[in-house]
């Protein structure tokens, strides 16, 4: 698609704010169009990174599971982590990557809740790795217009 989606959506958002909103009333509809413009700008920002950030995160979570599995005491969770660590993102559509990401993050929650109750330096190392990955996950999702 050329011109690129990013540029097109950005321009559409700009036009809505600068040209359409001043020309419409009542104010409630101005607000609605303003929200649509803000969402177009967000889609514009997300478009290019949508697949790559999910694929990157899925790989990082699989690595984390591979490293954590030997430390985990719960046998069921250990087996599940090793199985998930072997999975791959064969379908690169965003919806498929998102579905894989959700499955991995459900397991991440289970891992986190169990490892934080487990004693010993190896468990603390896994816990630290989880927090670092969670911080990175928010950086991947960050929008330039975010309040924080």
């Amino acid at each position: 698609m050329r011109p690129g989606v990013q540029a097109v959506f950005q321009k559409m958002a700009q036009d809505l704010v600068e040209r359409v909103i001043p020309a419409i009333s009542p104010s409630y509809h101005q607000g609605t169009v303003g929200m649509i413009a803000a969402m177009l700008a967000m889609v514009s920002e997300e478009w290019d990174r949508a697949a790559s950030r999910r694929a990157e995160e899925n790989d990082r979570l699989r690595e984390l599971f591979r490293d954590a599995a030997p430390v985990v005491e719960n046998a069921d969770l250990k087996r599940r982590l090793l199985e998930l660590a072997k999975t791959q993102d064969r379908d690169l559509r965003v919806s498929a990557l998102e579905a894989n990401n959700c499955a991995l993050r459900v397991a991440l929650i289970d891992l986190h809740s169990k490892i934080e109750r487990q004693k010993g330096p190896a468990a603390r190392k896994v816990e630290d790795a989880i927090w670092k990955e969670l911080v990175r996950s928010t950086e991947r999702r960050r929008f330039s217009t975010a309040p924080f």
Partner: protein
Amino acid sequence: MASLEAELATYIQSKMPEATGVRVDRLEQISGGASRQTYRFRVSYQHESAERERSLILRRDPSASLIDTDRRIEFAAYRAFFKTPVPVPEVLWLEDDPRHLGSPFFIGVEMRGLQTAPSMMQREPYAAHHQKIAEQKWSILGEIAKQDPARLGLVGTMEPVKPENCWKRELDYWEGVLDSDELIPQPIMRAAIRWMRRNPPPPAQKVSVVHGDYRTGNFLYDEQGRIHGILDWEMSHLGDPLEDFGWSLNRVWCWAQDDRRGGLVLRDQAIAIWEKASGLKAAPEALQWWELFATVKGQGIWVSSAHAWETGENKDPILVLSSWALMNSQDRAALELMGHLR
């Protein structure tokens, strides 16, 4: 809109039998919180041989909203705080019967010529008054904490809670919202909730009315930086005053994209104003717990708004925008409060 104007006129006439010729015009939907449809309108009538008119606000329930709330509690809160040191608009009539306007509603008096938008707060002439607005904002919140819920007549309307149970009741509720409505897993919020249960806050210093959504965007202010009315009481309840204060400090309300809370002043300044006005202490560990709770509650709201849109209950774009725009910031706020964001 014509039919709604006629329906409103019929309803108001029934509430003002002493008036004649009640007419409604200038009906216009406005932004007014995401949980109710809000309209402004003018009502004109004759009373004691004189022509009279008033500018009023209609708050009507939608089919589904950002926040599931009880209009009776919201109405009672407005009525209770009217003519107290906590400025609120006057409310007139509450109607639960949907046959009048299609769904339940209440009507109040419009405070005209004022702003609510957080974005306007960052522009002149308002930007010059941030300190003044902040002093009032957190002093009024302190006044809410100081008021006795029993003397306000709100005990009974609002569910009672013991000081030691405030935190658990709220956390249970919002964790339940995440359980029922989340569309994608929330590992940061789940970790925050586990931490909060392992490290509960001290009992509330007192049980007071909690506004429930006290933030920049939910009060009316003028060009001189004066606050005239606190709005959107739909989530008000009895609880720990630190709940409101922690919510007001939430990073997602940093509208200027810097460290100023509510887009107004730094956190320490807000704490000093609130402590002086409320006569209460914002002990660091207790406040940290309630600020972290604010991130869980916020995420509960953004998650449920996304859920409402996706399940088709409500297709208002604000449900999508709030979810898209704030969920990640809410996660980052939780990470910061737990000491992981450096």
